[in-house]
């Protein structure tokens, strides 16, 4: 376990250093993404200027929700940048490289790339949470835990979606739509949706665990939500690893072992 952590840290350090090689591009990508998110949030400023709240959610709650989702998404695509390309890597036989090395295939392949704009999302998430004005140590701790759960659920869900490539070949379009859908739904309060929709958002498209549930947990501690979040994160992660391993047994390629550049 410690060995794998060291390995991960070394990978992330290498990714960060290689990204910072082009300093201006690095800063532009981070700042660009922060501004991009801010532009979307203007919607909620205008919305709450006219309507005070919707189903119990006000502007401060939206700051927390956006904070959790942006930080989770940012952390996910920064630390495990290949989460958006896994389907293509499987379909094009590029897993050969990872299979030939003595490291966990899923972990290694996902962490081999960092999406730099993810750092912009992550920082934006922290700023958004700061704007909500909840500075008590326990609220900050709950936010941090929410982000860890959000990141885990997102990465696990996307791993499952991308792993469909083992069975259907070209899955990148489906995986991209799944990614767009889960992010879109996570950015809205759960109270907007009715019974059936809620069931979907807690199961096959678990957006609730990336947005609303952690956001409500930040608002007030509850054992029930803590249990829900932990169960979702651990359960989905286990499922993602299982699906990937099962898929890997079906993996085949035309021997694409080559120097990784």
């Amino acid at each position, binding site marked *: 376990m410690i060995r794998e952590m060291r390995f991960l840290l070394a990978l992330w350090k290498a990714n960060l250093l290689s990204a910072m090689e082009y300093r201006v591009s690095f800063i532009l990508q981070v700042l660009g993404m922060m501004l991009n998110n801010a532009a*979307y949030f203007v919607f909620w400023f205008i919305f709450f200027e006219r309507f005070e709240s919707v189903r119990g959610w006000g502007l401060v709650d939206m700051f927390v929700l956006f904070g959790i989702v942006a930080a989770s998404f940012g952390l996910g695509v920064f630390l495990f940048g290949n989460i958006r390309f896994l389907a293509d890597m499987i379909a094009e036989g590029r897993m050969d490289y990872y299979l030939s090395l003595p490291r966990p295939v899923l972990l290694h392949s996902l962490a081999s790339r960092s999406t730099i704009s993810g750092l912009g999302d992550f920082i934006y998430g922290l700023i958004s949470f700061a704007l909500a004005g909840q500075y008590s140590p326990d609220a900050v701790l709950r936010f941090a835990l929410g982000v860890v759960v959000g990141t885990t659920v997102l990465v696990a869900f996307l791993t499952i979606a991308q792993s469909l490539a083992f069975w259907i070949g070209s899955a990148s379009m489906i995986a991209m739509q799944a990614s767009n859908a889960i992010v879109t739904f996570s950015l809205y309060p759960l109270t907007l949706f009715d019974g059936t929709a809620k069931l979907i958002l807690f199961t096959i498209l678990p957006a609730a665990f990336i947005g609303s549930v952690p956001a409500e947990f930040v608002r007030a501690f509850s054992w029930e939500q803590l249990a829900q979040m932990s169960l979702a994160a651990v359960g989905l992660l286990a499922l993602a690893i299982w699906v990937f391993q099962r898929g890997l047994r079906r993996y085949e390629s035309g021997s694409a072992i080559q120097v990784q550049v």
Partner: protein
Amino acid sequence: MKKIAIYIAIFRTQLINSMAYPADLFSRSFMMLIFMWVFFQLWQATYLSTGQNVIAGLTLADTLWYLMVAETVLLSKPRLGQEIATQVKDGSVAYLLNKPYNFLLYQLSVSLGESLMRMAVNLVFGGALVWLLVGPPPHPAALPLTLLAILLAWTLDFCIVALIGLLAFVLEDVSAFEWIYSKLVLVLGGVLIPLDFFPEWLRSFALSLPFAYTTYAPARMFIDPSIGNVLPLLGGQLAWLALFALILSFVFARGMRRLAINGG
């Protein structure tokens, strides 16, 4: 007459081209369905919580049909600026310049040809869902007028985006400008929320800028085709279009003089 036939042929080729990958076409509409469904949940809850049937002159059905048209306009248009910028940067613009057509009109025909099929699919899918959720559009007869307004909106958008693309003659990398423009359309163009829900000062400000005429105008005309509403919006579209078309042709003529092609 013969010249127009050239552009119609280019337009038709692009249109047929866009139909070559139906899976791609339909999967793009998937996001349209998700957006409309989420918007419905949000606005339904909002209308219920205020206890009003009409907010800022719009009913729930008006708001949803407005958003459907606004999203269609946005999701169907092609990403042209980057393409023009690349053509300018790598010099491939030269291969288009020596052909017997106007470069800008060629790009416009390509752009409209690419967008049309995408728009049709988005309108059908998005329209069907919104119809199911809130009932028929308030003024179905406004559809031809809306399609005309969408055409004007895309042409205006084309002029602005092409202008940004042509900045590559001077600036090389124009992606930042394109990005800023897309965010201005998103916020001040009324894509995410109708301008009617803006505070009054921001609404008048947005209406005095060109961005509202690339999305808000066609969507608003669809839900209220009255003369009082249509005339200022259509007038605004035509005025901004005339202005930007003029600037674009001027900049294009100037840019041609700067064009330097190194071999190839």
